[in-house]
């Protein structure tokens, strides 16, 4: 029995360039960067004062059905990204759901509609939490647990915890669109989105669902989450007066590090047969996925497996799964965050898989334009790969000069014949994910 093929019918990426693929694609092709001083909080006390925040125009309240507006009060930023991305993707796919068209029967039966979303470790909103903590201070100004237990905690809204459980991204998305099929939340840092897409692929393949809302979302634009990125060695030194748009240089050893960006979003994945049966416009095929775990000398994988062997294993597994030979891969979208040690391990992995042919494979780099998007990365990268395939075009590359074996140096956008594109990433923690996206014909 041949397995069910999985196709991509809806795109809903969310990035510092806004909601949807169009503003992102346009900015990438024009070589514009959205990295700028952080507005949400005063980030001058951190190594990097700049990052890739969503534009102010992104407001989830404008996106959700009217009946759901009240629920936006219990959405952390990460949840907003997933919810906004899902609404966009569903519309792009031409799907009627409870959220987009409550008066008509849904295109996908609810029990055949799944949802898999990658999420980060969501940090609590500090203003809200600290307003409550501040009511429980002892004479020295220190937190007083006795007062907190008795009284202070009442300052928090009863639903407070539900803003920060990682599975609340999928919770809101499944409620809005009435997805009652298999649902999951993957939390593997940078690999989260790619592993979620892979899980949707498996679920559709084994017939447990016909379509899935799949992707990931992450916002590190919160002082605590931001500090964790800094402590993990992810942030470039970048003062508020420096030009952040020129800072990140993926695969260039002179890169000072990464800047983080909010984002992610949702894609609609469908079984090819059911997508065709409903006459859907098919953007591309999700033809293969692979995963692996790195050996980490430091255990936690701040920089996992410098040799790149394990990431190469994941890439090779994805190529095998897709039935695609390395020679048929025409472009690569790696994480390429601009932290030299992580870039170098990615370069090593790619060299293992592609050998001498690597220097001829164009590398699409996203981080100078939107920052390192952590758990949201794979969703944005796959969206961009899909757009590359449908437009038969590569976006511009920014900032990098000397990139060794990798064709990752600054270059303008160009037309290009593209069949298969590889998206891959390692992660803090050592999980690797690879996804092959193929032109649909």
């Amino acid at each position, binding site marked *: 029995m041949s397995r069910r093929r999985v196709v991509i019918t809806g795109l809903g990426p969310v990035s510092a360039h806004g909601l949807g693929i169009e503003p992102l694609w346009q900015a990438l092709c024009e070589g514009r960067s959205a990295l700028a001083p952080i507005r949400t909080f005063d980030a001058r006390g951190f190594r990097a004062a700049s990052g890739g925040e969503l534009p102010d125009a992104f407001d989830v309240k404008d996106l959700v059905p009217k009946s759901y507006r009240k629920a936006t009060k219990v959405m952390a930023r990460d949840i907003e990204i997933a919810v906004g991305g899902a609404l966009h993707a569903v519309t792009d796919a031409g799907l009627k759901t409870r959220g987009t068209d409550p008066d008509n029967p849904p295109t996908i039966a609810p029990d055949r509609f799944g949802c898999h979303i990658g999420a980060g470790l969501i940090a609590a909103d500090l203003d809200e939490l600290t307003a409550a903590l501040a009511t429980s201070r002892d004479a020295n100004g220190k937190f007083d647990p006795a007062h907190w237990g*008795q009284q202070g905690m009442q300052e928090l809204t009863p639903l407070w915890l539900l803003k920060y*459980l990682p599975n609340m991204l999928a919770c809101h998305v499944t409620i809005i669109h*009435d997805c009652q099929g298999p649902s999951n939340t993957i939390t593997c840092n940078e690999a989260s989105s790619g592993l979620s897409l892979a899980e949707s692929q498996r679920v559709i393949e084994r017939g447990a669902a016909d379509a899935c809302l799949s992707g990931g979302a992450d916002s590190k634009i919160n002082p605590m989450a931001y500090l964790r990125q800094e402590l993990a060695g992810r942030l470039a030194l970048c003062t508020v007066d420096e030009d952040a748009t020129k800072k990140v240089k993926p695969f260039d050893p002179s890169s000072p590090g990464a800047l983080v960006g909010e984002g992610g979003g949702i894609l609609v994945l469908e079984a090819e047969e059911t997508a065709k049966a409903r006459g859907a416009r098919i953007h591309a095929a999700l033809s293969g996925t692979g995963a692996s775990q790195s050996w980490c000398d430091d255990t936690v994988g701040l920089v996992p497996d410098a040799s790149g062997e394990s990431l190469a294993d994941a890439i090779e597994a994805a190529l095998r799964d897709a039935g695609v030979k390395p020679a048929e891969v025409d472009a690569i979208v790696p994480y390429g965050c601009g932290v030299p040690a992580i870039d170098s391990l990615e370069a090593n992995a790619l060299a293992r898989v592609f050998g001498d042919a690597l220097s001829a494979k164009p590398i699409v780099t996203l981080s100078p334009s939107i920052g390192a998007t952590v758990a949201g990365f794979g969703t944005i990268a796959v969206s961009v790969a899909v757009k590359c395939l449908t437009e038969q075009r590569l976006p511009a590359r920014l900032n990098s000069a000397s990139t060794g074996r990798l064709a990752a140096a600054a270059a303008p956008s160009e037309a290009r014949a593209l069949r298969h594109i590889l998206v891959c990433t390692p992660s803090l923690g050592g999980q690797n994910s690879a996804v092959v996206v193929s032109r649909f014909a």
Partner: protein
Amino acid sequence: MTTKSNNRRVVVTGMGWVTPLGHDIDLVWKRLLNSESGMGWTTRFDARTFPTNFSAEVRDYSIDRFVKDARVHATAGLNSQFALGAACQAWKQAGLDGHAALNKKRVGLYLGAGEGVLDFDQYAAANLAGWNAEQRKVDGVPWADTAHKVLEKMCEVEQEPNMPLAHLAREFGIRGPALNCLTACAASTQAIGEAFSLIQRGDADVMISGGTHTMIHVLGVTGFNRLTALSTSKADPTKASRPFDATRDGFVMGEGSGMIVLESLEHALARGAKPLAEVGGYGSSADAFRITDIHPEGRGGAASMHVALAQAGIDPLARRADGRAAIDYISAHGTGTKENDSIETRGVKRVFGDNAKDIPMSSIKSMMGHLIAAAGAVEFITCVLAIRDGMLPPTINYGTPDPALDLDYVPNKARASKVDICLSNSFGFGGQNDTLVVKRFA
């Protein structure tokens, strides 16, 4: 293009747990069958004035007894520590310790591990240092200034929910697919189900799966107290968790880890490993109903049970040749909240019809508390042990029947019973439902 086989049989070859009742499979099992409670006053933080000041804590535990070299896990948070102890037991029982022929690239991990524990005192200190009372917000610069001084790098890194994966990968040299899912109270049931699916698909031959979690910390208890999900029966912690009883008033937080080794049957037999049980089926669904409430008819739970049973080839409404109901035991989600227990009962009746009253269903949360993300894994292990020994663990503290809850909850005392097929349910906040079918290996 190669065609993947989706029907490889998957068996359990190793199990381990670290729980409030102990850190050894048989010892804890004995205590469960003796109706013992692992509850006590909370000691992990000063909870004296909290609405819920009791919990089921893991006691007298250290990874030193389990791991090869504790130094490589020196910064591990509690979640990873619990996971290491449980996984080392499972790995050893599976006979994988020192199994030289094992291809580590065909060994994977799929965990349902929770987030780590905040360095709360330091975190609170930074927040208060940054607090601007006039503007009612935290100022970034003073916050960062204090945070840089008081928060430690590794303590922060170790809070990422994928860190138990990293520690287990390091301990066992695992190089295959590795994933963590975090779907609240359903996480480790889901992890086992997905690990099973990965082996079926041929993506790995062996997987360590299970969960690990503790939320016995200031903000964990705060969060659940604000949701009014926790029992506040302070008179006697050992009597506080009362699943299916009419006087139940919420769950009691537990902590710990359950881990199993799953393996394709062919791989297990080829190396002479002894299957302890077989995974028969897995179902996952979303309520897609409300943020806080479960669907009143138990729609989502019924859906996940139906899918798992169908995959196992079991008709829930039929009876077996010897007259027994379709299955022998249900390890309930059974949290002890008003809503969960009544809706779970309704969901089971919806699925099993007239068979439901003949299928014993108990909640070990009455004894070891609710291990949140790890709950499903320890309950799965309980099913395997029930099959092994023909014993059903009880639901303790069952005193006042609830007229609406009329199933056989195995009240208060363990019971001998012929057990060949079990079902294990986990339902998470946010409407996540997962079900596993566990069968005697034959």
